[in-house]
C-alpha cells in the first residue's frame, strides 16, 4: 500500500522458522515459550489477519532448527499490483500531512529496534510494549478507501508507518522539503501517550499521505464515508527542517539533511573460518526405504497441509496452481500461480528457497542454492527466467561479531554472483540482525538464515504444470547433473551428521537446464515436474508418486552424474542443485529429448499403475520398494494436528 502511490495486495507468502515442535520441555530456557505453542500462535495470527484482509496466502514454507528456540523467525511477504503510471510519488510544500487508518497507541514502541536486539530471559517483560496489536479490519477498510483515493488522485505521496512510526514516515516523505507536525492532533487509541510515544509508536494500520490543500476536503469526505479515520496532523514546508509541536510547544527541531545523512558510515570487521564437520562413514545398505521414510517425516519435509488449509489461498478468485496438488488435492506444490487480473491469462508465479543448514558449512553456497531453489520452482510450474525478480531476507546473529558478519558477507557475495549470472534482479529485501538469545548457560545463535523469494510473470497460465504423477506408462526423467553433494543434506541430518560437500551451483549449466525445461513446458511436452530439493531425487520422485496416486519405478544406473558415483544413497539423496524430475508422455518422448539433448539427463523409468515406489540401484537390485500410501502416511502424520 505504501509502494509508489499504493499497490493492491494480491498475494501473501509466509515463511516461518521455529525450533522443532517436539522439543523437550526441559530444554526450554526461562523466558521462552515452547516452539509448538509459538508455531500454533503464529499460524493463528497469519490466519486471522491474512484471511480477514482478503489477501490469498498462497505460498510459504516452514523451517525447523533447534537454534530458533529463543528467536523464532516469521517472514511475511506481500505481492502487489500497481498501475505503471502510479509508481512515482512526491510530496509538495504546503501539502497536508494526513494520517489515515488506525489510531496511535502505546503498542509497538521501539518495535523495530526490538526486532534487532539480543533477547534474554527478561525480554518478555521489558519488551512487551514493542509488539503491535493489529486489527485486520481497520487495515482492510483503509486499503479499500486508499485505492479509491489513489485512483481519484486525492494524494500524491504515501508511506506506511513501519519502523519508527510517524517519525520515519514523515521524515522520509519530507526529506527534501521539511515538515511541521502538531503531535496533539494525532488520534489516539487511549489517553496518556507522551509526544515521544506518539511520534515513534509503530501501531499498525496507519498510512501517512501528502494531500494538496484543494483535495483535502474531498479526501476527508471519502474516508468518512467508509468509516476510516483521516486526520491532518501537519504540513510539508520548504525550509528543509523538521519541526514538532505538542499543544503549540516546540518539542523537536532537526535539520532534514542531518537527519538523513548525519550518521557516519560504520566500519565493521568480518572474518570467515571454514568449519570442518565430521564426514559420516555410513556403511552401504541394501534397502533405503527406512531412510526415505525418515526424511519424508522430518519436520522440514513433511506435509504442511495443517497450516495451508487454515489460510484462504483462493480469495480474490485468481488461483491457478494451488499450494496443494494432485489426485487428492494434498501433494506439495513447487510454486503457486495466480491470475491477479480476472479474465486475463497472465499469471504471477511466487516461490521461495531457503536452506540454513548449508550456511553452517558454506554461506556462499547457501545463497547460491537458495536462489537456485526459488528459480527452479518457477521453472517447475511452467515459468521461465525471462521476467523474474528476487527478494532477499537476511536474519542473522549479532553482526558486531566478526564471524557472524563474515558469513553474512559471504552470503551477500553468493547472492550477487548467482543473481547476476541468472539475470534475475533483486528488487527488494529486508534484514533482522542480532538474533541471539542469552541464557545463563549459553548464547543461542540462529543459523545464518537467508530467505530468497522469487516472483515471475507467466504469459499464459494454461501452460502451468503441477507436480503430481499423471498417468501410468508415462516416462520419468531426471534432468540435471547429480554430484556427490550430501553436505547439509536431509539424509545426513536424519542420521545426525552435517558433512562438508555442500551443493554448488553451476550457473552456466543451470541456466541452460532451466531454459531448456521452459521450452519443454512451453511446447507442452511436460506432464508433471518437481524440483529436487530436501531429500534429493528419492523424495521428489516419491512425492510425485503419492501425490498422483500412482507408482513410480526408476533406475539409478542411468542418473546423469559428474564423475562416477559408486553409492546408491548418494544418488538417492544428494541435493545437487538445478535438477528436476520430469514426467513425459511416451508420444512426446522424441520432442522432449530433442529439447534436452544438450543437457545432462537420464530416462530413469516410468509411472506404474501398481501403487509402489520402486528404485533399482547400481547393482540392479531394488534399493527402495515401498507402497506409496505408506510413504504418504509417513509424510502426512507428523503435522496432522
Amino acid at each position, binding site marked *: 500500500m505504501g509502494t509508489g502511490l499504493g499497490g493492491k495486495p494480491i498475494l501473501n507468502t509466509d515463511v516461518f522458522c521455529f525450533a522443532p515442535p517436539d522439543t523437550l520441555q526441559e530444554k526450554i530456557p526461562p523466558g521462552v515459550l515452547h516452539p509448538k505453542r509459538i508455531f500454533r500462535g503464529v499460524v493463528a495470527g497469519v*490466519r486471522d489477519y491474512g*484471511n*480477514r*484482509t*482478503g489477501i490469498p496466502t498462497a505460498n510459504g514454507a516452514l523451517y525447523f532448527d533447534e537454534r530458533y528456540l529463543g528467536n523464532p523467525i516469521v517472514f511475511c511477504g506481500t505481492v502487489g499490483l500497481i498501475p505503471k503510471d502510479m509508481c512515482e510519488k512526491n510530496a509538495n510544500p504546503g501539502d497536508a500531512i494526513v494520517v489515515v487508518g488506525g489510531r496511535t497507541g502505546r503498542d509497538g514502541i521501539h518495535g523495530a529496534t526490538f526486532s534487532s536486539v539480543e533477547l534474554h530471559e527478561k525480554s518478555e517483560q521489558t519488551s512487551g510494549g514493542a509488539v503491535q496489536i493489529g*486489527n*485486520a*479490519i*481497520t487495515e*482492510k*477498510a483503509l486499503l*479499500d478507501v486508499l485505492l479509491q483515493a489513489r485512483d481519484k488522485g486525492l494524494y500524491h505521496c504515501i508511506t506506511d508507518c513501519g519502523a519508527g512510526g510517524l517519525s520515519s514516515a514523515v521524515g522520509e516523505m519530507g526529506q527534501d522539503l521539511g515538515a511541521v507536525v502538531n503531535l496533539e492532533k494525532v488520534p489516539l487509541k487511549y489517553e496518556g501517550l507522551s509526544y515521544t510515544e506518539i511520534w515513534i509508536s509503530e501501531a499498525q494500520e496507519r498510512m501517512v499521505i501528502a494531500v494538496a490543500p484543494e483535495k483535502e476536503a474531498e479526501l476527508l469526505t471519502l474516508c468518512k*464515508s*467508509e*468509516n476510516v479515520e483521516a486526520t491532518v496532523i501537519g504540513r510539508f514546508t520548504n525550509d528543509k527542517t523538521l519541526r514538532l509541536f505538542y499543544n503549540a510547544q516546540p518539542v523537536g527541531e532537526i535539520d532534514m539533511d542531518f537527519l538523513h545523512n548525519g550518521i557516519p558510515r560504520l566500519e565493521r570487521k568480518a572474518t570467515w573460518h571454514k568449519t570442518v564437520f565430521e564426514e559420516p562413514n555410513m556403511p552401504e545398505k541394501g534397502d533405503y526405504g527406512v531412510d526415505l521414510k525418515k526424511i519424508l517425516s522430518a519436520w522440514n519435509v513433511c506435509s504442511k497441509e495443517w497450516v*495451508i*488449509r*487454515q*489460510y*484462504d*489461498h*483462493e*480469495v*480474490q*478468485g485468481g*488461483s*491457478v*496452481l*494451488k499450494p*496443494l*496438488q*494432485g*489426485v487428492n*488435492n494434498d501433494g506439495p506444490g513447487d510454486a503457486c500461480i495466480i*491470475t491477479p487480473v*480476472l*479474465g486475463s491469462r497472465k499469471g504471477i508465479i511466487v516461490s521461495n528457497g531457503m536452506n540454513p543448514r548449508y550456511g553452517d558449512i558454506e554461506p556462499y553456497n547457501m545463497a547460491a542454492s537458495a536462489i537456485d531453489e526459488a528459480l527452479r520452482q518457477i521453472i517447475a510450474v511452467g515459468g521461465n527466467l525471462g521476467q523474474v525478480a528476487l527478494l532477499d531476507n537476511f536474519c542473522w546473529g549479532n553482526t558486531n561479531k566478526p564471524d557472524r558478519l563474515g558469513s553474512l558477507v559471504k552470503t551477500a557475495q553468493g547472492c550477487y554472483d548467482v543473481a547476476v549470472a541468472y539475470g534475475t534482479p533483486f528488487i527488494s529485501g529486508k534484514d533482522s540482525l542480532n538474533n541471539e538469545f542469552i541464557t545463563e548457560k549459553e548464547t543461542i545463535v540462529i543459523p545464518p538464515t537467508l530467505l530468497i523469494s522469487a516472483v515471475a510473470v507467466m504469459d499464459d*497460465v*494454461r501452460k*502451468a*504444470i*503441477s507436480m*503430481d504423477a*499423471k498417468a501410468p506408462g508415462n516416462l520419468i526423467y531426471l534432468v540435471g547433473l547429480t554430484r556427490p553433494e550430501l553436505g547439509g543434506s536431509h539424509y545426513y541430518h536424519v542420521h545426525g551428521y552435517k558433512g562438508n560437500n555442500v551443493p554448488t551451483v553451476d550457473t552456466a549449466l543451470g541456466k541452460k537446464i532451466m531454459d531448456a525445461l521452459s521450452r519443454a513446458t512451453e511446447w507442452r511436452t511436460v506432464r*508433471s515436474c518437481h524440483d529436487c530439493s530436501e531429500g534429493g531425487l528419492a523424495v521428489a520422485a516419491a512425492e510425485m508418486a503419492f501425490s*498422483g496416486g500412482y507408482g513410480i519405478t526408476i533406475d539409478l544406473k542411468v542418473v546423469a552424474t559428474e564423475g562416477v558415483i559408486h553409492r546408491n544413497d548418494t544418488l538417492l539423496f544428494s541435493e545437487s542443485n538445478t535438477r528436476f524430475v520430469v514426467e513425459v508422455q511416451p508420444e512426446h518422448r522424441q520432442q522432449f529429448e530433442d529439447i534436452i539433448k544438450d543437457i545432462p539427463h537420464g530416462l530413469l523409468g516410468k509411472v506404474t499403475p501398481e501403487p509402489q515406489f520402486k528404485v533399482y540401484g547400481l547393482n540392479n537390485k531394488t534399493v527402495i520398494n515401498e507402497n506409496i500410501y505408506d510413504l504418504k502416511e509417513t509424510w502426512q502424520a507428523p503435522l496432522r494436528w
Partner: protein
Amino acid sequence: MTKPKIIIIRTAGTNCNQETGYAFERAGAQVDVVHINSLLANKKVLNDYHVLALPGGFSYGDDISAGKILANQIKYHLLDNVKTFIREKKLIIGICNGFQVLVKAGLLPSVDMQQQDVTLTFNDSNKFEDRWVYLKVCSGKSAFFKEGSAPIYLPVAHGEGKFITRDQGVLDKIVMNRQVILKYVDENGEDAGYPWNPNGSIQNIAALCDSTGQVLGMMPHPERHLEPTQHPRWTREGLREWGDGFVFFKNAVDYIKQNFTIR
C-alpha cells in the same frame, strides 16, 4: 440498458466483492458494488436492481459473531426495502459471510419469522479451512440451481459454516418445504462425513433458500470456480469451458431476464 442489474453490498471486511461482481458480469449482468453506508443513506437505490448480493469476507471482522453487525444494519435499517425487493420477485444471494448475514438478519429460512431459527456456527474442526467440496443440488426451489445433475465442485473457505437449527421442528420444516438447496456429498453424490462435509453441518446442509425460493444462502464459493483454471486438478483432468460455479450466476441472470422486462 439491457442487462439485469446486480447490487453487491460491501463494507469493512468484505473481501469477495470483486470476483463475485466479475462472475455476474461474465454471466451477462451489470454490476454495481455499493458500500452499505451509501446504501443506507439512499435506500431507494435498491429499487434499481434485480439481484442483491452479499459476498464473502469478514464483515466488520466477524467480531461479535460472523456477519452479525452487517446483519443488524440490514435488519434494523433496511428490512422494509428488502421485503419489497422480495415481494417484487427479485433475488437475494448471500455467499459465505453473506449467508451468515442473511441468517442473522432473519431473512433465512423465512423473512416472516419471529426469531432467528437457524445459524451458522464454528466448524467441528474448530478452525478455518479452505478446501474443495462436492455438492448435490437437492431441490429446484431456488432460481440459482437446477435440480438433478452430477455433483458440482466448489471450494469452501470458512471457520463458521456449520449449519444448525433451533430444534428438530425447524429442520423438518425446511426439509419438507424443500428449502435445502445444496448438500455436501462425496464425489459419487453420497452422504459422507468430514472432510466431505467440511464443517459438521446437520444433514450436510450447504445452502438454504427461503420459503419463496428467492433468497439463497450458501457457504461454498461459486465465484471461485468460474474459470476452468480454478479447479484444483485442472492440470490432471484438463480444462473445461467453464467452472462449475458459472451456472449459478447464469441461472440468476436467466431468471431475471425471464421474469422482468429489462429496459
